[in-house]
């Protein structure tokens, strides 16, 4: 792929990205959210059409207009969210659409024999006749890969295959990858776990903000350098935190200890004091979002103790979290935050209903006043508060969600990637707001994949790696280098240091 461009309305998602893949090679694509990894993959798999550049396959230029074109050429993708049919057998999923037939219709015996042979060839202990959803995510992924092989594919794209696997399963996957390499199949691998990337890759290409940062051999690039290329900013704007927060005589708003949430959180402890901005640093998949979900009662079976203002509490659902004075602006704005067809007024007031209603009736005047107050305070740009939320820009939608939670007058607000997908100007505004919120004595738990953002804003930073605490940095120790060093460090510090 040569100098690929992709333009989305308003954003240039890819700027002249180069990428090439040799047969029998594992080429890893790295970059944080919004770096353009998935856009590049979607162009390669025909989901999007490119706006510029060339795709050359086997020396010939190719054009993909739909998702079937690349498949015919032998480019198969194993997606993060599994794209297979859950209720059908493993064998059938492998051969769907290409059934062996006899005069009596589909020849199940041959199908399962062939499928079983393919599975055995890969050294998998998966039965072809078992229903696909009897197996866990890992096995389903393997089946997906086997399907790709049976299609005589030349390239397999593995989009974050390890994100929900445990160590043993990852080993299995790597075993498969080795076998693919032996078959001269090229592999595009996407992962955020550094160790894995270094263990498996032949080459690494780094993308940042849609730009091509370079291609390296793992031996030529230290983990620290790699992280710097992914998240570091060339021009560090107001690199230091100018707030003068003194937490010595402040109370803890929230203390979380020994949080386990299979498989991504394996014993994390985090605490936030009132008026403090605490950052959760770590790469994608380090468990930072999951910690927030556990705190807000949005995760399934999690264990560990949570204390709010010194009292042990049980938070089983978001309603419990709300009652305990917590607020949560999630990273998936569209799926988990925005109620698209309702007005800004309604979106702002939904969580703060108890304050503005009497006997269940919404007090319109109070509701309007509330919406007005936050539209002004957060400088939400909209002609009227009766505008539907889906018509606002990303940055303004984010402000509306922030307003929704501020309206509940929380003691702690969790902000997961609050500046993702919004433009630079709005980013700065949101960051100013965060400081203002903390200034009022509200604790802030800030999650971000942009380390500079954490450095600029946080009073304390917990560094996570693969679901465990790596360390904690207090204000004068906070710097990009130290965070990145901790991310790549191997021995997690003991828990005593954390508190």
């Amino acid at each position, binding site marked *: 792929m040569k100098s690929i461009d992709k333009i989305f309305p308003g954003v240039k998602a890819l700027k002249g990205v180069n990428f090439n893949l040799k047969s029998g090679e594992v080429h890893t694509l790295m970059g944080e959210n919004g770096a353009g990894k998935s856009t590049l993959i979607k162009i390669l798999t025909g989901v999007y059409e490119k706006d510029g550049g060339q795709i050359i396959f086997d020396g010939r230029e190719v054009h993909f207009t739909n*998702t079937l074109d690349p498949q015919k050429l032998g480019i198969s993708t194993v997606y993060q969210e599994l794209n297979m049919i859950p209720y059908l057998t493993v064998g059938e999923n492998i051969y769907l659409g290409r059934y062996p037939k006899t005069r009596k219709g589909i020849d199940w015996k041959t199908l399962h024999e062939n499928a079983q042979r393919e599975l055995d060839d890969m050294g998998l202990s998966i039965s072809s006749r078992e229903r696909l959803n009897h197996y866990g995510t890992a096995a389903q992924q393997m089946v997906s890969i086997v399907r790709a092989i049976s299609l005589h594919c030349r390239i397999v794209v593995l989009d974050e295959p390890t994100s929900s696997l445990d160590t043993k399963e990852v080993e299995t996957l790597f075993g498969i990858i080795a076998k693919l390499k032996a078959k001269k199949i090229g592999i595009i691998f996407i992962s955020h776990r550094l160790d894995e990337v270094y263990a498996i890759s032949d080459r690494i290409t780094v993308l940042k903000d849609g730009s091509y940062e370079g291609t390296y051999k793992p031996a030529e690039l230290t983990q620290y350098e790699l992280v710097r290329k992914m998240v570091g900013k060339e021009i560090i704007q107001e690199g230091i935190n100018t707030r003068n927060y003194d937490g010595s005589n402040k109370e803890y708003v929230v203390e979380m200890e020994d949080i386990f949430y299979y498989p991504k959180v394996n014993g994390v402890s985090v605490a936030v004091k009132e008026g403090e901005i605490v950052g959760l640093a770590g790469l994608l998949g380090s468990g930072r979002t999951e910690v927030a979900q556990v705190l807000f009662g949005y995760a399934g079976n999690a264990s560990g103790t949570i204390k709010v203002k010194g009292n042990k509490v049980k938070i089983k659902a978001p309603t419990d979290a709300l009652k305990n004075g917590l607020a949560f602006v999630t990273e998936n704005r569209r799926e988990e935050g925005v109620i698209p067809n309702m007005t800004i007024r309604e979106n702002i007031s939904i969580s703060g209903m108890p304050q503005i209603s009497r006997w269940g009736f919404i007090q319109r005047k109070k509701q309007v006043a509330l919406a007005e107050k936050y539209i002004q305070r957060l400088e939400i740009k909209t002609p009227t508060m009766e505008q539907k939320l889906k018509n606002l820009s990303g940055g303004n939608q984010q402000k509306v969600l922030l307003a929704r939670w501020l309206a509940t007058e929380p003691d702690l607000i969790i902000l997961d990637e609050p500046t993702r997908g919004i433009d630079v100007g709005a980013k700065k505004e949101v960051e100013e707001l965060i400081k203002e919120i903390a200034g009022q004595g509200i604790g802030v738990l800030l999650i971000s994949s942009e380390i500079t953002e954490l450095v600029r804003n946080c009073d304390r930073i917990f560094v996570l790696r693969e679901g465990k605490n790596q360390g904690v940095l207090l204000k004068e120790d906070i710097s990009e280098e130290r965070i990145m060093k901790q991310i790549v460090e191997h021995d997690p510090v003991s828990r005593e240091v954390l508190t």
Partner: protein
Amino acid sequence: MKGIGKHIKNNGTVLGLFFMMLLAVIINRNFLTIENLTNVLRQASMNGMIAIGMTMVIICGSIDLSVGTMIGFSGFLALYLSNFSLILAIGVPLLFGLLVGLINAFLINKCKVAPFIATLSMMMAVKGVTLILTKENTYFAEHPVESFSYVGRGILLNYITVPSVLFVGVSLLGAVLLNRTAAGRSMYAVGGNEEAARMMGVNVEKTRLVAHVLTGLMAALSGITLVSRVGAAYPLAGEGKELDVIAACVIGGTALTGGKGKVSGTFIGVLIIGLLTNIFNMQTFLNSFWEKVITGTLVLVVVLIQSIQENHIKIYKGSKKTASVK
């Protein structure tokens, strides 16, 4: 132990059927006579044929509410045309069954109307047309072709009724279609994960169309059989039958979320409901109105078990089988 549990899970409907038979034998000593069993099968076959089609529609993740009124419609057509020729009396209603299936699929695929509403409108329209044609009266044929009554009343080898043969035949064909043809497997793929199916190259629209057309055909066939046996076409004959049919599918283990279900399950589901009716007709100590209560409860129990199983799988993801390199 685990093996037994799995067996019960997979064959719950079979167990249910055995239980019903046992109950039937206890309640009614005449149950196990050939006459009675023939009767049960014949009575069940009207809904049964449609249920086979409905199973396919539901596996596709769709639904068809128009089958009930289709019975009345095709019944009238068949009886009216039986005055002229047997071929017309069977062919024309089937043609209209196909047409209604096509319209349903068109509304769902092209107009993007929700299947529930699309087929609900179709149900009303078909009912209206039937009432118009019959002038809101029960229709009797003046001089039907003699052979026509054979479809509904014919008996082979003393005991086997033609409707039961049709039902069993349709079930076998349905099973072959679903298990042994690419068209049938596509239905599972479409209902299981529409996007994935599309990615794997399945023609989603065509698959849905096939299922709806087949169901329309089955409803027409059921209507023909009914009038042939009764000898009169009551315009509202099949009203509400669509729900009985759906209930049979659900009891047979077909999930309304799509992608899951078997012809054999539906076959047993149909028999269970048929037995229930038979048991209630044959006993005196329990009011026959309990039948509906029990059917409702049965449906609820089946879906509750399904739902709990599904959610169980979701909660304990860790307990799923994992793959390992040998």
